[in-house]
């Protein structure tokens, strides 16, 4: 289900304070990797450097096929490596859409040739993501689809979604849903609130998301199928997810770094790099998202890395496309803005960026254990760096963090036994 360039595993040693929350490890250790496999773990001297299971991002727009000027499998996975990731899942809203085994097969081949970090591919729920008829989900699953989503677009028809939920029983893979009621979000460029009222930006109310989350959870509950809610932004959606999970619905949720750090106040700058879908909401929403991440209602941090060509973002705010990049800044941004101020523990952040997403999508959980393939990220929590356009491995630089100084750096990434990044 994950594909990357073939090659032997590396032999190396990594030393530091090993923090592996799901394994209950927090001690200074030296990890020896031989041919890609962890061969020994020994006590080591105290160190400020943190070693953790590497990250997993289940929401990455790799723009391939179709927009290789914005991102390729090579550049996107190099960006992922620099961000500390050992596995990513690509979204199928490409051109053409990944809605057939043929398109998926070609991508898998390309990943085997180009991908530096193991990469999985989600496939579309509906043919062409048109929301009209189901894609050949069973064949796509057999060809290696990691999950199914029409992300970028909602599944508007409740009937089609119900059928997709039923049919997903044949695939064993979850549905990941972009929840948006288009009749409420149409013309929306910013969260409906004082900022959109003041700036005159078309309002995108919280209910455009939450009524769809409620509907989709109700259907998933009735069909007893697994459902993953992508990029949750509104507190009403968090409440719906919490209630559904308490009622036994097999539902999970993800949240992006930008929704955890920014609010719609940032939109006052009219900088196209703070324009995304769903939009930045207000501080009570942000608080609810942090709380949900803390308690586990939302168990996944996902970047929704959405590269855009410079000329597409260098336009007036209202004309700019939605989306920001995130692979290379996710850990540092959340460490700086949530862990350092004490709003989230390092352990929770590490878990929600690694084991959390792996579990939801049925990917191998990165573990620090003798005999396991090495999937490690080495972090300097005190290291400060400035986010600059020139620093990105991604082909695009539409980051909401440009010019910002962050605290916490990824020093080294080992993915599937190979060193894929070293600062």
């Amino acid at each position: 289900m994950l594909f990357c360039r073939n090659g032997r595993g590396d032999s190396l040693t990594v030393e530091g304070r090993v923090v592996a929350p799901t394994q209950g490890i927090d001690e200074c250790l030296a990890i020896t990797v031989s041919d890609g496999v962890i061969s020994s773990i020994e006590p080591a001297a105290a160190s400020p450097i943190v070693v953790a299971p590497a990250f997993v991002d289940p929401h990455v727009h790799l723009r391939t096929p179709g927009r290789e000027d914005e991102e390729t499998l090579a550049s996107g996975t190099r960006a992922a490596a620099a961000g500390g990731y050992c596995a990513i899942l690509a979204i199928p809203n490409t051109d053409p859409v990944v809605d057939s085994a043929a398109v998926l097969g070609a991508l898998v081949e390309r990943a085997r040739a180009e991908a530096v970090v193991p990469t999985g591919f989600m496939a579309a729920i509906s043919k062409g993501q048109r929301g009209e008829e189901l894609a050949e989900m069973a064949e796509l699953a057999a060809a290696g689809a990691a999950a199914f989503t029409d992300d970028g677009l909602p599944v508007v028809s409740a009937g089609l979604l119900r059928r997709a939920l039923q049919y997903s029983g044949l695939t064993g893979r979850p549905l990941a849903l972009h929840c948006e009621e288009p009749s409420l979000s149409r013309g929306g460029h910013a969260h409906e609130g004082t900022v959109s009222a003041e700036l005159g930006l078309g309002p995108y109310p919280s209910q455009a998301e939450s009524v769809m989350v409620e509907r989709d959870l109700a259907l998933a509950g009735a069909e007893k199928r697994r459902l993953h809610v992508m990029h949750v932004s509104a507190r009403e959606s968090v409440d719906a997810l919490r209630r559904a999970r308490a009622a036994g619905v097999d539902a999970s949720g993800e949240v992006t770094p930008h929704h955890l750090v920014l609010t719609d106040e940032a939109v006052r700058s009219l900088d196209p790099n703070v324009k995304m879908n769903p939009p930045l909401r207000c501080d009570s929403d942000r608080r609810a998202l942090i709380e949900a991440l803390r308690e586990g209602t939302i168990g996944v941090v996902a970047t929704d890395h959405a590269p855009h060509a410079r000329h597409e973002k260098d336009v007036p705010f209202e004309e700019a496309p939605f989306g920001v990049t995130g692979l290379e800044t996710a850990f540092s941004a959340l460490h700086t803005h949530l862990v350092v101020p004490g709003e989230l523990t390092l352990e929770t952040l590490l878990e929600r960026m690694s084991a959390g997403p792996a579990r939801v999508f049925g990917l191998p959980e990165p573990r620090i254990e003798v005999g396991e393939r090495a999937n490690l990220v080495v972090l300097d929590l005190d290291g400060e760096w400035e986010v600059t356009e020139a620093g990105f491995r991604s082909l695009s630089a539409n980051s909401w963090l440009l010019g910002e100084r962050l605290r916490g750096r990824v020093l080294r990434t080992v993915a599937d036994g190979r060193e894929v990044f070293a600062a």
Partner: protein
Amino acid sequence: MAELRGPASPRRHLLSVADLSRDDVQRVLETARSLAASLDREVKKLPTLRGRTVVNLFYESSTRTLASFELAAKRLSADTMSLRSAGSSADKGESLKDTATTLAAYDPDVIVVRHPSIGAPQLVARCTQAHVVNAGDGKHQHPTQALLDLYAIEEALGRLEGVHVAIVGDVLHSRVARSLVQALALVGARSTLVAPPTLLPRGIEALGCEVSTDVADVAEADVIYVLRMQKERMEAGEAFVPSLREYSALYGITPKRVRPGQVVMHPGPMNRGVEIDPRVADSDAALVSDQVRAGLVVRMAVLYDVMTVAPVPARVAEAVA
């Protein structure tokens, strides 16, 4: 000289009323008053901005705004050129950024931008060295309209502090309403937005205004400010009110809804018989042509202001003398 005021901080642009202080507003209005005196003379041209260049970059149709910016620049002896999107390279698909960068190569002192998209003047300000004046960006801001409205209100009522303005109509899509509410709040005036619930943006009270859905509430105001009801807002599937007929009946400003002593304003162009009854539009209570006249002197003052950091009244006085 002690009473002369310079800008609180050097300011290169006029992008939004939200960026202005009360002092900024008062200074521009004072400058406009000084300039108005010059317009009564036989030779109306001032040498103040001789050798300066003002470019008007208009991506949206406009009569009075473009005309008044052009004339304002000429009256101050600036060189001026006006580019409209139709017939320009925008027609050939050139981006706003490229057009602005191209124009910037001629070193204009001021670029006046009107554009249908929110954030366009901000983009021009980011990619050129010129002073940028926002002449209307989408539903966001139209700061010179707000300033000229303040000028016209002060001329008509003799004061701004404590004046109560009822702004009636399609607030949701109105850059005029947003700018004016902020400007009124800055000078200590009061504003009430009156509109059908579907045309009142959620959260607009944060700008410092009251809101009402009852047209009877205009009775309390000193000024009834009527907004244009844009016909394109009535397109199928996008209708914010059931019909223009019902809108007119509920919110149209008719002679019966104007109490003696009130003045009526409209930013133009008017839809007579929709948001404003022709009998009101043509009455003595209407300040519509005063607003147009105010537009010229206020835009002269704005062009002067963005290009200057020195105390204003003295220099203008010299220029006028």
